[in-house]
């Protein structure tokens, strides 16, 4: 298998993984957008391998494929797991914040806020 095929397969796999995680609601659309871009870039590199070589020559990197695979592979695995974790933590934080706000309103009411006044001294 050559580098072009690998990038094509990698791009397709990255795309599928992103869709799968968003579909199962473990990854939010907000965090998935960047990964869709990464997957597309990888796929495009596989389709047009010459572009990578051109880029490598322009930036004087003599061995572009190695840099790309190692760096991208590691960064991908690590950062993706972070995105998933953030989504999960964020959802919990929101739910806690909403519960806190609702309970705080309830406490105010029970301590004699406006609603309690209505119940106890209903004028008409």
């Amino acid at each position, binding site marked *: 298998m050559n580098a072009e095929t690998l990038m094509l397969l990698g791009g397709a796999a990255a795309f599928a993984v992103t*869709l799968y995680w*968003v*579909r199962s609601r473990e990854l939010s*659309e*907000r965090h*998935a*957008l960047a990964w*869709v871009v990464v997957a597309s870039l990888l796929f495009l590199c596989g389709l047009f391998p010459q572009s990578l070589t051109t880029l490598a020559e322009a930036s004087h990197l003599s061995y572009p494929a190695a840099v790309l695979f190692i760096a991208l592979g590691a960064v991908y695995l690590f950062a993706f797991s972070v995105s998933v974790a953030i989504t999960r933590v964020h959802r919990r934080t*929101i739910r806690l*914040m*909403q519960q*806190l*706000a*609702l309970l*705080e*309103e309830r406490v105010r*009411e029970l301590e004699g*806020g*406006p*609603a309690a*006044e*209505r*119940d106890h001294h209903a004028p008409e």
Partner: protein
Amino acid sequence: MEPPTADRPARHLVVIPAFNEEKALPRTLEALRVLPAEFDVLIVNDGSADRTGEVAEAVGRVGNGRVRVVHLPVNGGIGVAVQTGYQFAASRGGYGYVVQCDADGQHDPGLIPELVAECRRRDLDLCVGSRFLGTDGDRSTRLRRVGIRVFVALIGRLSGVRLTDPTSGFRCAGPRAWRRFARSYPEDYPEPESLFWCARNRLRVGEFPVRMHARAGGVSSIRSWRTAYYMAKVTLAILIDRLRRQER
């Protein structure tokens, strides 16, 4: 929760999400005074940095118990604020319809009883106030109208339901819709996505012509530099929701 009965008719809840709306809020709340007695009002102060919370509390004190205020400790976004309203309705019980109405004066609270009546008459689960079915009023900017047309086409193609104003934040939800929204609701730009969810999961959705006003104060949460993110995020959300199993 206690279901409404013949002796205890259903009350309805008007949810007003408010983020930094100290200037527009008093006028909106004044306009809400015309609502019949079966309507309660819940102002959700979405972690505002200005005096929105104090203004809301001051009105709540003279509201004869019909106006409640919930303060989110930090800003959560429009979807989080509105969902807090649905959760309030679910936790208190006894509510029939839950209406979302903006704090910034864009929506006319006088139309709320008609919106609820329309929802009930046509047995809708979600009735959206559409600025495009009416004959006049503020129709938003050209850029936003293009975005709205994209969502109309997308939702129409994927769910088979034709609507004219999927981004409208003036909407009335019946129990089947708002109970689900209380459990799960998009965080930012929630309107088109939640509408699509209803349409796709065989809830009855419809529209009602409303007149909208230009904003009275504050800053719209949809600014031009965010439009690209808004379009991409909502489109992705709708496409992916299409891939999920139907829930009902």
